[in-house]
């Protein structure tokens, strides 16, 4: 890591410098409307080399998959193939305009059509929309589809969405955006959905259930078919949160488990890079009952040509144009390299890696649900008196590892959610497990090593409380 403080661009700025030379104006000039012009524009002034060094140095202050093991639970930080980037950088994509007309964008439409097909195949869906830009956006699509389905059947009173207590925060937040009411379903002792509580909640106000399977505990929901049946019998529909598809692609089709609509995060299972926060794609797939409600437009094939079309009862448009197309190119490249066999090997190795790592870690750390896990597992960081999960996480940084997801899911105290992914080698898993073992020993013998961690980063632990109390959100000279 680059430990040298890097000034802000504004602090590097010197009057009169410019990092890009633009062409001279080659047309006769037209007078500008002076009364409409701004007096000042506070942007930094930098030469090109300074900009290059600035961002190169900043990049060196990040942990990333390309530099470090990054076992962030629920985020599927697998290797992002460089071929994906090469494929997406083609000028034929970068210079394609969304409104040039279907006839001029046949290559882009054909790619979308093939990707729709491939993603539908991995879930057993009858149709797919690539429009949602992120997982939460896909959730919004799915929940709005369920809402519109009930409205179209004259049942607008179905406004209750059932959500297990282990769910991502986006699930309830999405329901609120769609105007639905959330009823939280507790987990049972095994980490699955509490069936009695679910049964009691299934009344005629139920719109559906949002269920993540495998769950955020990294466990496959053994009662999945029974859950779907209960909800269907009550007149509701099943939303599958596909954040954890990496564990089951090629192993089981969600539709066969009773899922009616589902999103996958292409930036997780389908290897597109997270980009420090995005962009992602939260494509949605639907069973026949909900396919007409998909957001659009979607790509259809008419004769030999591809065209955009709105599904028959579409909820409408979730964003301008067609989705995060550049991300779709990456996902398509990945699907083509993997094929059917590769998808299954991906899931198998992800689950094997997680179970192997769990086996190593549970010798030292409590694992809340000790049964067979899928692609991730949840351990607990309270290995010694006065030691919290946060301390373990920060100490891992000193060992050169990105910490796991911590304090989530909310139902496990001191949670450390560890997802190794299939692309890590056994040696890396061993090294990570050994680091955790050594940290557990340090927790007993030298606890301050943990409390003061990390020790070798550009900054130490930052005072987040003070930062939120008096926010400084911009440089102001």
């Amino acid at each position: 890591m680059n430990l040298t403080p890097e000034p802000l661009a504004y602090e590097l700025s010197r009057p009169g410098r410019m990092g890009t030379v633009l062409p001279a104006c080659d047309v006769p000039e037209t007078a500008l409307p002076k009364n409409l012009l701004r007096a000042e524009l506070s942007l930094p002034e930098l030469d090109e080399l300074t900009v290059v060094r600035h961002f190169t140095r900043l990049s060196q202050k990040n942990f990333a998959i390309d530099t470090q093991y990054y076992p962030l639970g629920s985020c599927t930080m697998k290797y992002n193939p460089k071929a994906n980037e090469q494929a997406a950088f083609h000028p034929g994509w970068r210079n394609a305009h969304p409104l040039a007309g279907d006839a001029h964008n046949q290559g882009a439409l054909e790619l979308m059509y093939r990707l729709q097909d491939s993603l539908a195949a991995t879930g057993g869906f009858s149709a797919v929309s690539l429009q949602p830009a992120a997982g939460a956006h896909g959730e919004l699509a799915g929940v709005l589809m369920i809402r519109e389905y009930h409205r179209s059947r004259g049942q607008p009173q179905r406004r209750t969405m059932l959500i297990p207590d282990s769910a991502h925060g986006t699930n309830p937040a999405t329901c609120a955006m769609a105007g639905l009411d959330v009823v939280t379903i507790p987990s049972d002792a095994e980490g699955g959905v509490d069936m009695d509580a679910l049964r009691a909640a299934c009344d005629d106000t139920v719109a559906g259930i949002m269920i993540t399977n495998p769950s955020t505990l990294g466990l496959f929901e053994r009662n999945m078919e029974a859950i779907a049946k209960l909800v269907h019998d009550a007149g509701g529909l099943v939303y599958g949160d596909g954040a954890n598809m990496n564990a089951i692609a090629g192993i089981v089709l969600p539709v066969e488990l009773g899922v009616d609509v589902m999103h996958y995060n292409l930036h997780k299972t389908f290897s597109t890079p997270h980009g420090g926060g995005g962009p992602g794609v939260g494509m949605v797939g639907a069973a026949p009952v909900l396919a007409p409600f998909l957001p659009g437009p979607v790509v259809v094939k008419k004769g030999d040509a591809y065209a955009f079309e709105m599904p028959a009862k579409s909820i409408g448009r979730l964003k301008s144009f067609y989705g995060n197309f550049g991300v779709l190119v990456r996902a398509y490249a990945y699907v083509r390299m993997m094929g059917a066999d590769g998808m299954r090997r991906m899931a198998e190795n992800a689950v094997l890696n997680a179970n192997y790592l769990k086996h190593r870690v549970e010798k030292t750390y409590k694992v809340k649900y000790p049964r067979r896990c899928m692609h991730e597992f949840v351990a607990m960081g309270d290995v010694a008196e006065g030691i919290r999960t946060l301390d373990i996480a920060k100490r891992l940084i000193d060992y050169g590892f990105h910490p796991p997801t911590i304090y989530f899911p909310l139902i496990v105290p001191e949670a450390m959610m560890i997802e190794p992914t299939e692309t890590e080698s056994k040696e890396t898993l061993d090294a990570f497990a050994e680091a955790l073992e050594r940290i557990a020993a340090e927790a007993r013998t030298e606890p301050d090593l943990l409390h003061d961690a990390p020790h070798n980063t550009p900054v130490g632990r930052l005072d987040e409380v003070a930062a939120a109390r008096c926010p400084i959100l911009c440089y102001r000279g």
Partner: protein
Amino acid sequence: MPFIANSDSDRSAMLAAIGVASMDELFADIPASKRYPKLALDPGLSELEVLRELDALASKNLGADRSAWFLGAGAYNHFIPSLVPALAGRGEFLTAYTPYQPEVSQGTLQAIFEYQSMASALFGVDTVNASHYDGATALAEAALMAVAANPTRARVLVPAALHPEYKDVLRLYLSAHPVQLAEYEGAPRDAGLSDDVACLIAAYPDFEGRITDLSGAAEAAHAVGALFVVHADPIMLGLFKSPGELGADLVTAEGQALGNPMNHGGPFLGMMGATQKLVRKMPGRIVGQAADHEGRRGFVLTLSAREQHIRREKAVSNICSNQGLVMLQTTIYLEALGKAGLRKVAQLCWHKAHYAAGQLGKLPGFAVAGGEFFKEFVVKTPRPAAEIADKLAARGVVPGFPLSRYYPQRTHELLVCVTEMNTKAQIDLLASSLAEVTR
């Protein structure tokens, strides 16, 4: 096996350590009858084969780099300095997650802080969040903020000449609320404000390229307790008064033009800025300055009590993943261009667009719509615009956006966009080609 490190002997050793006999056993929780479906996917290919296939597909598209390109309408052909993709493509940025662990994410966090600083200066507001999916969803979330602030109000006012796809997105995002999207023509200050309005939205410029007169709008909106929301072209703001200076409470923009390729419509950059008093009601991630125990400056995600991972159904939005890498590209772009560069881009757009309007206005049967414009303008055509566009495409000229594609009755109008990418020779070619095909 693509992208998998472990060998068969590694796998055997791991299975033995766990104490299971085979891979299948790991999936015992999944009903056996449903396990291992036959996926309707082709067999996997090598990287070489896949890149060849994608090259063939990509080459079927008509690219702005191979034509005289005058099509905008929400996605814009601007110059991207080489350093933007070179730096943003570094694996340390590309393959990092959301910066939840600040000690090992200072690169991403400082870049976001710099973005917030520059974008808020451009908008003339106090702060900007770390991005939305695109301009349309940023605007829709701004409208949701206004509705949340005034839940009893029944109307959101939008210009009739707002991008039609943005209206669709607004309608869908507002569909959970008893709120009507009411359209107005003309100046925003005369939009029909009353105390049932949650917010007044203005487009700066509007979909047809006109620079909306924003004067008096903020005062009129505030007088009835409504928020004033401006959706702006960020390139235009390099030269023109900022919405904040004109009294906007919330500013949104499509940031694609700032250093990001058109990419068949995505990924784009939803920008949203707000005045100080609305910061804690804003959706999305926000980065703040902080200090460690030694007093060293660092940056953290802050004000997270607004967000879904803390507040669940009480969060201000469900947004989680955003457009981080696109935001980074815009940050690099703004720093490479700087104050003078962005102004220069805006000036080139202005001069070239006005030159083009002058040339097209002289053609027989053509007439440029009135009003002040920046880089886009509507021209009336003597023959159907869609027909003209088809004819010109065959000559390597993409003349603009036939408005009939969104408004079927407006058959003889073309929305023409001119940027710094268009040379005088291209503009002259556009004019001569239009003359020839309509003669």
